[in-house]
């Protein structure tokens, strides 16, 4: 195992992608992820890849679509409004079954919003911001080490399911520094090996009997329906295979928080502080947001839990999934900050105590 290095989040994301075998990166600058394209522009060409600064996010995602359709391993990154612009590409790539790893270092919205951390792209990420029947596996790291590991693995998942995969981080993770242990450099797939490793890829006719095609247009409804149903066979498998979560201190908990990414870290500290005041708190931390770990809610301690609180940097977008997981078994509530404000652990403690008092009445 290699030694720990102190890295800024955005640079660690880029390094993880290169080590995961990414050979192509297309991007357009947007805060708070500018260090990703900066890092890629510096590093990728030196390490056998190609960096292109696109003229817009729409161009970047379509360059990714093209390079990945030709069998390249592609990484793209952006932040909230930029990812909104990329949604057409995400839908097209899901439809055409093209593997790409995308990263959203999200910030406050809606609209141009602000540049401070946000989680209000939850619906965009998990419900699909593009058109049509499709899903994208979404993973939400809460430490830089977890982000590195998730990005590294995401390329394998994207290839396995032939579908885009999204890593959803936020501005805080992009900007902070933390020690990380970097994984081994994976061998890059070279152009001459693509035809044998990815037989579906557009590598030229090359004397094959049947040429490869990549399409997302199906004019006949019965053909389109069949294609969508085929996608959903994959999605049903993904729902079983890609669910990831952690639970902390659920046994005996009075309050169960549900939090992902940056918020999960703040909630961890709030749990300790509540414990010191005699309030036992637990947490469910979804690591996959689609598929969502609904099954985690079955581990909640029925005897002690009084309330399940979705804790997020948005106006309760994840609360919808929390309610599905809870399925009426406990009252649910919401602790949020939005617009780029990240709450302190103290704030979460105070709001939690208010919620508990409200339940007594």
């Amino acid at each position, binding site marked *: 195992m290699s030694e*720990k290095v*102190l890295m800024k989040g955005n640079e660690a994301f880029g390094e993880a992608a290169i080590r995961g075998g990414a050979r192509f990166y297309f991007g357009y600058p947007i*805060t*708070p992820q500018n260090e990703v394209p900066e890092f890629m522009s510096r590093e990728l060409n030196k390490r056998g890849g190609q960096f292109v600064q696109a003229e817009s996010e729409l161009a970047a995602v379509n360059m990714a679509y093209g390079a990945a359709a030709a069998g390249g391993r592609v990484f793209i990154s952006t932040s909230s409004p930029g990812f909104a612009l990329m949604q057409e590409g995400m839908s097209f790539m899901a439809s055409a079954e093209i593997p790409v790893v995308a990263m959203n270092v999200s910030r406050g919205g809606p609209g141009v919003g602000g*540049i401070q951390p946000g989680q209000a792209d939850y619906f965009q990420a998990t419900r699909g911001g593009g058109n049509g029947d499709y899903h994208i596996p979404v993973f939400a790291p809460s430490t830089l080490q977890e982000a590195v590991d998730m990005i590294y693995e995401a390329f394998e998942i994207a290839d396995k399911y032939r579908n885009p995969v999204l890593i959803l981080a936020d*501005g*805080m993770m992009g*900007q*902070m*520094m*933390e*020690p990380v242990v970097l994984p081994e450099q994976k061998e890059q797939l070279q152009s001459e090996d693509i035809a044998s490793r990815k037989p579906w890829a557009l590598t030229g006719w090359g004397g094959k009997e049947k040429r490869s095609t990549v399409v997302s247009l199906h004019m006949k409804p019965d053909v389109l329906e069949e294609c969508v149903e085929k996608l959903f066979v994959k999605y049903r498998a993904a729902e079983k295979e890609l669910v990831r979560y952690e639970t902390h201190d659920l046994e005996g908990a009075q309050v169960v928080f549900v939090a992902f990414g940056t918020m999960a*870290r*703040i909630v*961890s*500290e709030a749990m*300790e502080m509540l414990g010191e005041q005699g309030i036992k708190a637990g947490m469910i931390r979804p690591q996959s947001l689609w598929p969502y770990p609904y099954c985690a809610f079955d581990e909640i301690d029925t005897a002690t839990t009084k309330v399940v609180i979705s804790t997020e940097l948005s106006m309760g977008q994840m609360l919808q999934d929390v309610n599905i997981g809870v399925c009426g078994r406990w009252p649910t509530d919401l602790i949020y900050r939005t617009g780029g404000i*990240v709450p*302190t*652990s*103290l704030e979460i403690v105070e709001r939690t105590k208010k919620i508990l008092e409200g339940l007594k009445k």
Partner: protein
Amino acid sequence: MTYKMFFAGSGGQGVLMMGQAIAYAAMMEGKEVTFMPSYGPEMRGGTANCTVIVSDKPISCPLINEADAVVVMNPPSLTKFESMVSPGGKLFVNTSLIDFAPTRTDVEITDIAANDVAKDIGLARSANIVMLGAVAQGVGIVSAASVRKVMSKLFSGSKAHLLEPNLKALDVYLKGE
């Protein structure tokens, strides 16, 4: 033990570098660390601050409610952040630029005329390194040797010629091994 630090000043004063140096040194000593900078549209002349946490166990939250040590490099930072020092904690004040006293009476205050000291030794741009030496010495969470080692990493390659003068700036207040 978990030790929380906060560095504040204006953009261009090298505030983030001070925090990074402490985080780097602590990591080299095998400790857990997080470094969280403020970020915004400002560059030189805007405000800059960062939070550094050093611990012997994994760090859950990289943000802080209060700090064991706060370092302020310019007047607005003292006004805004002196309330962040935990009772009994340490407050390092750059008296070269800050001409009023802190209002806190329950914290340990260290006055360092960082810009003047730096100028006196002919290194006007190393005020942050002078302060870093004083902070490292004052809080004692990382060894002097580790901080010096970090200097050789920060000032390498095209900046290698800056290593020796900055070690001199560092060692004005940083003593021992």
